């Protein structure tokens, strides 16, 4: 079990997230539309809680001030060695919704490691899979969303046909 992350659910973040997934549904941005239509509030899109990365102080895939970054600058990579995510690809993602989130919710998020397994593949060599389970609890301590993510580490970049 890693440390608990606090994730405030905010209307502007929901609006930006909806734009990022090309979803113009007013339920993600318009409070009046939200009041007049079910479920009677702005809500967050179904995949929104993956943005918990924004609130994780140790998130590896965010540039941190004063630290070397593996993306390009003067050179093609700012790091000489292997990048933190090198070879890591997203393999599976699962959500269970106990209730949908709205602006003002204050989530407490815990995560734990799940199963690991291996597989051989034609296009990327040996694949190593690792599962993480996140639980998002609201301000009353009730479970709102359970999220299961599977990341796959490949032996080499995925060959393109």
């Amino acid at each position, binding site marked *: 079990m890693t440390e608990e992350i606090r994730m405030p659910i905010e209307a502007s973040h929901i609006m930006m997230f909806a734009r990022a997934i090309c979803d113009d549904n007013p339920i993600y941005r318009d409070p009046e539309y939200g009041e007049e239509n079910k479920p009677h509030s702005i809500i967050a899109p179904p995949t929104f809680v993956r943005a918990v990365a924004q609130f994780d102080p140790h998130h590896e895939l965010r540039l941190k001030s004063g630290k070397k970054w593996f993306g390009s600058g003067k050179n093609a*990579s700012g790091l000489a060695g292997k990048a933190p995510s090198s070879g890591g*690809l997203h393999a599976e993602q699962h959500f269970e919704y106990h209730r949908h989130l709205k602006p003002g919710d204050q989530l407490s998020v815990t995560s734990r490691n799940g199963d690991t397994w291996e597989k051989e593949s034609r296009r990327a060599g040996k694949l190593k899979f690792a599962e993480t389970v996140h639980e998002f609890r609201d301000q009353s301590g009730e479970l709102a969303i359970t999220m299961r993510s599977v990341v796959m580490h490949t032996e080499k*970049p995925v060959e393109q046909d």
Partner: protein
Amino acid sequence: MPLSASKLHVGDTYEEVVVDDLTRTQLVMYAGASGDYNPLHTDEIYTTEVAGYPTVFAHGMLTMGLTGKMLTNYVGDGRLTKFGVRFTNQVWPGDTLTATAMVKEINETKGTLLMDLDVKTLNQKGETVVSGYATAKIDP
């Protein structure tokens, strides 16, 4: 409009083009909103010279988010109880994606009417980029 069990049939499908000619700017927007700043999605130099891919490619979660837009347009807002996918092919700038849901089963659990869906998103070549499932609450 919420879906009504009396008007639904196993095998019914709903389909939507969820993105047409995906842009690199969309990937930048997704990185900014989600907090996944992996250079594989936005940094052409790193991705081609260091990671060994032909160009930047979409976050899996962007493809799932686009697929989720089709689902919520079909089942209504706040109706999903489950949504899961496997990412089966990468999505590239220029791709056009079509997401489809097919009614697999309609059942009642503890007094709630639920619909199970098979979910699939294909690129313009007909390759599956995500495949999965969803469950949504429906009206009688």
